């Protein structure tokens, strides 16, 4: 009981620090925080899908669709900026749901490759519809969201991130968690114990795609442009993946810790070596996969568990 009160106070304290951040932090630190929060959202959403045992390379694809739907809605059809984000979420959800029926039968490398190929397909489609999307020349938005008020944009991103983390924890704490991890560990066992594998995969796929689409929409609204190269950039896949891996996959807090650690490291590297910093992410991913597949959080958790059981004996 004591423990729970302490936890509540800590969470409340952290929350109020995060919410009030724009009032005392400088513009630079605020923008770094926004980047970290955006990547954290993507990392958590990627990990949520991974928990079902399906590796998705589709982050960049849904991110790109979200960002294009939102920019096209605002600049071609004069729709309100905030509404355009919801519109992006809805469109991505519809696309993901339609795709779910086709691709959620796939497993392993076939699922991964299909999601990667779909990202390329989306970018080819966007590139070849110049009247709607501006083609490879991209699109620029002149009226950005909240007229470019950074504080409000920060709160918007923070809301998105907290919502994603909340959702991810909710999935971890409820029955969904057992369904998901049993699918990952042994699908046949899951199926024979009455779990509707396809239903859970679809729910996860659509929700994570929506989160990624919303992230894309907010990113575009924040910076006011979308080019095929940037909207579908594999950076939005690589960095979140690296973050989740560094922190530790199959857990919300792993991704959160990983994004804070790697986000700060990334920012430092960007200052020290402006061009080559992204090599480091790749190397980090390779090293983590080879030597620390459980990530920071997973490894610490294992250690704690080991010492606890050791103390009991």
């Amino acid at each position, binding site marked *: 009981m004591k423990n729970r009160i302490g936890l509540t106070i800590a969470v409340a304290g952290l929350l109020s620090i995060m919410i009030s951040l724009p009032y005392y932090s400088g513009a630079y630190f605020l923008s770094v925080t926004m980047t970290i929060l955006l990547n954290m959202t993507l990392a958590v959403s990627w990990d949520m899908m991974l928990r079902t045992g399906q590796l998705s390379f589709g982050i960049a694809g849904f991110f790109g669709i979200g960002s294009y739907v939102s920019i096209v809605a605002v600049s071609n059809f004069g729709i309100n900026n905030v509404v355009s984000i919801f519109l992006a979420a809805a469109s991505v959800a519809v696309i993901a749901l339609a795709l779910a029926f086709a691709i959620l*039968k796939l497993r392993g490398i076939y699922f991964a490759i299909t999601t990667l190929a779909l990202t390329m397909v989306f970018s080819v489609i966007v590139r070849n519809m110049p009247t709607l999307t501006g083609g490879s020349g991209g699109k620029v938005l002149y009226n950005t969201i909240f007229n470019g008020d950074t504080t409000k944009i920060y709160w918007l991103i923070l809301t998105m991130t907290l919502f994603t983390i909340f959702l991810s924890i909710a999935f971890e704490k409820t029955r969904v968690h057992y369904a998901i991890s049993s699918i990952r560990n042994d699908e046949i066992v899951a199926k024979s114990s009455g779990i509707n594998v396809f239903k859970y995969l679809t729910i996860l796929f659509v929700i994570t795609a929506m989160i990624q689409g919303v992230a894309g929409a907010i990113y575009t609204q924040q910076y006011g442009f979308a080019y095929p190269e940037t909207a579908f950039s594999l950076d939005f896949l*690589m960095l979140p993946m690296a973050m989740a891996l560094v922190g530790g996959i199959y857990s919300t807090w792993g991704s959160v810790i990983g994004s804070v650690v790697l986000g700060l490291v990334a920012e430092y590297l960007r200052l020290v070596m402006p*061009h080559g910093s992204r090599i480091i*992410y*790749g190397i980090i*991913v390779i090293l983590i*996969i080879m*030597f620390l597949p459980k990530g920071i959080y997973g490894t610490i958790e294992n250690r704690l568990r080991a010492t606890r059981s050791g103390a009991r004996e």
Partner: protein
Amino acid sequence: MNAKPFHLNRTLLILIILLVVIAIWKPVALIYGLQRGGLYALIALPLALILGIIGILNLGHGDFLTLAMYIGYLLFENLKIDPLLSMIPLFFIFLALGMGIYMLTIKYVLKSGELNQLILTFGISMVIIQMAELIWTTRPRNLYVPYASSSVSFLDFSVGTYEFLYPALAIGVLVALRLFLKKTKLGQAATAVGQNPRGAEIVGIDTNRVYFTVFSISIGILGIAAGVMLPRTSVFPLTGSPYTLKSFALVAMAGLGNLNGILVGGIALGIAEAVIQSIPGYGGWSDLVFFGVLLTVILTRAYRRSES
């Protein structure tokens, strides 16, 4: 491996008939497609080898090709080595690089599940792309050799002669690989490992040595492909990237272990791409040919599997 010397599945056959019809309608597309398709097959063969025998999909495949092209470019610029001659040193450089990459990374993930393997090779791909960007920037490099721009006129069109090297080389590599897999002891061992790794281990085959050899030879072949591509392709950090998924599309279409099918499929898709590109205003959509085929093949296979 197969009783029939030349295995064709029905889908492939229908595709070929369709393409022959189109080719009569657009003969130039046939030639372009044949040339480009040969190149696709040449690049897809090593991917098929790694996927078929080691069981790893190398997402850095196309990026090794990029790297080989940069090194070929440097050999030409600094040592004046003709790109066609540089195929030989490039093969050995990349054979060695393949060995190094295998010993440093692939070896550690052989037993750790396909998701980890995919993430690892994806990481390798990113490292190569970013490294190329850092060292050579995104500026495209071109090199000029006079023989590469010769052409013959065909009907009313002129067709580059140099590009006929692509299918020729693809056939050469295919024949060499088949000889290696059939005639040499190591090749036979590799075939056995590809069919049943555990069984091969039980009968005393050193699987690690087989993987090591197959991986390095495959990366070495990319050196050859880079050499032949250099005179007609501009080199930039993302030159090779599209070939990874295209190669996988070919392997998925032909089926694992069907090396001949890769050549046929490569040429078929090369022609399909060339036909779409020849339609004015819609050339940009030609990129969808491979992805369309890839998605169709993967999905039909998945449904067939889930129905049975």
